[in-house]
């Protein structure tokens, strides 16, 4: 089989060579890292970009009139261009950098939630949200009298579209804030339909794309959504940086969230005025090195291409579901038709924490717990699951190792 005949194929061995950490061993066993949905590993290109900035070209940015500052500003602002291109944003000024997805959602909950939504209106989330897309809206509800509605999830772990639409019927929902892909079930939500329905009922839509953008090409104009958030560290970039994309007219209507340096136009004690978007939302010294690292991550992902990434992960997921089905007593949670490379499961004889620890002793890293999605766990009558998740560097061999490892765990607990 010549891998080159398939244009979308991804040369996983070459890719693995780009990630220094993958040669590590854990307790003498080769690292099998199946926890990329929590945070992905970093390719050499990202490491090098950050090192090069620190070694050759670094200063605080914006309004620095010297060479180091001008060059660093360019390098940092190039991340904004890269993010805009990645998401097919209409304009680079629609890209707001935050600390992570959580920071982006909180920005929206404060600025759009308290500044644009009116008490009596509602925010609609779904039953499969990450805590980061639940708690900020709860806090908004409790502080500002905004109702919080929850779109139901089916037994298969999909969004119940009829139930979702019903909750929009009365026209009170001002904003739908919903995951684009579940970090527990792997479910990919039918984003276009979600938007059509919301817009038909006068609601704006924010997608939590923390997981989705790692697995699927995101085109915010094609999706026709209003806000889209994601987090750098899951897309092979550094920690400390996240992205809020928003339609420019909406961003312009929103009051700032945090105050400080860089987000102002002018400051007087009596009154201050704000900088234009996106700077209005970026208070203080930005995550400069992280922006530079994120730019390298986006370039890296773009070079591989989403076609290849999505195909690779689809084939891994299929293989994994087949192999896991053969493990007696193993139950996969969530059977969505459209799904990405994240699989949650339980074993009948072993608690998920024991499963994770025993896999770890075989060098296999999976996550176990509620995955910051307690309400979803409850929906499926669970306290916790184990979760394996895949990245561009994941191999079929690693999935076989997982399946074999699980067979051993099960036998061990017999």
């Amino acid at each position: 089989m010549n891998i080159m005949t398939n244009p979308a194929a991804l040369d996983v061995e070459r890719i693995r060579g780009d990630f220094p950490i993958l040669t590590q061993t854990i307790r003498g066993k080769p690292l099998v890292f199946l926890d990329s949905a929590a945070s992905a590993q970093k390719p050499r290109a990202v490491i090098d970009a950050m090192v090069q900035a620190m070694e050759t070209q670094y200063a605080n940015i914006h309004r620095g009139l010297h060479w180091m500052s001008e060059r660093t500003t360019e390098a940092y602002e190039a991340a904004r261009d890269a993010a805009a291109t990645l998401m097919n944003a209409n304009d680079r000024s629609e890209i707001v950098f935050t600390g992570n997805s959580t920071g982006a959602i909180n920005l929206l909950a404060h600025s759009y939630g308290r500044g644009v939504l009116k008490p009596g209106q509602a925010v609609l989330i779904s039953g499969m949200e990450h805590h980061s897309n639940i708690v900020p809206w709860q806090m908004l509800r409790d502080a500002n009298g905004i109702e919080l509605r929850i779109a139901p999830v089916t037994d298969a772990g999909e969004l119940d579209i009829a139930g979702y639409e019903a909750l929009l019927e009365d026209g009170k929902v001002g904003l739908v804030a919903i995951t684009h892909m579940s970090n527990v079930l792997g479910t990919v939500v039918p984003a276009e339909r979600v938007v059509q329905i919301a817009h038909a009922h006068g609601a704006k839509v924010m997608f939590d794309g923390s997981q989705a953008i790692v697995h699927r090409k995101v085109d915010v104009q094609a999706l026709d959504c209003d806000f889209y958030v994601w987090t750098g560290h899951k897309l092979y970039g550094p920690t400390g940086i996240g992205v809020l994309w928003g339609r420019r007219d909406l961003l312009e209507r929103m009051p700032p969230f945090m105050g400080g340096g860089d987000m102002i136009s002018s400051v007087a004690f009596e009154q201050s005025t704000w900088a234009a978007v996106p700077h209005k939302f970026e208070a203080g010294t930005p995550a400069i090195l992280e922006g530079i690292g994120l730019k390298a991550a986006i370039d890296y992902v773009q070079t591989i291409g989403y076609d290849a990434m999505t195909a690779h992960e689809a084939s891994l997921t299929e293989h994994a579901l087949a192999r896991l089905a053969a493990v007696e007593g193993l139950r996969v949670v969530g059977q969505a038709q459209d799904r990405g490379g994240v699989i949650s499961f339980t074993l009948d004889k072993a608690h998920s924490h024991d499963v994770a620890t025993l896999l770890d002793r075989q060098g296999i890293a999976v996550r176990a717990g509620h995955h910051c999605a307690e309400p979803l766990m409850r929906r499926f009558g669970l306290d916790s699951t184990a979760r394996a998740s895949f990245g561009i560097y994941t191999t079929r061999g690693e999935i076989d190792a997982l399946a074999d490892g699980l067979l051993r765990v099960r036998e061990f607990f017999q």
Partner: protein
Amino acid sequence: MTDSDSFDDLRDLYQEVILDRGRKPRHARRLETFDATAKGDNPMCGDRVQVWIALDTGSIARVGFEARGCAISVASADLMAETVQHRTVADTKSLFEAFRTLARTGACPDCAPGLAEPMEQLAPLAGVHEYPSRVKCATLPWHALMAALDGAKEASSER
């Protein structure tokens, strides 16, 4: 693979006694008559335990428990129930401190002098120190026990 030696890599943390106690705890029952009880709850991972204590003039006559959680937490609760039986409350408290150090650091050479024997019994749990986030699985039942002894209704584990 059925040869138990092939599980060497797994057994250094999950020693036979832990597997066994996790599967078939000896003290997993609610006491009919008791002097104190308390719950322990670790919302971060869903572990939940309740302990009941029967006292007898300053000593612990019996401990029973109900636990939902991983093998480590159930085994730890069971070993705890066994080792504290017939001990004075004061001894039990020092044993807790010693065990906590054991769970966190993997050893407790000089602590709790005079408690060498029960510490030996608890030693199979020493391996959790390698997993800081699982230390609380092992200590949760102890926190509940301490809460009960102190007259509290609830304990929450360390984070």
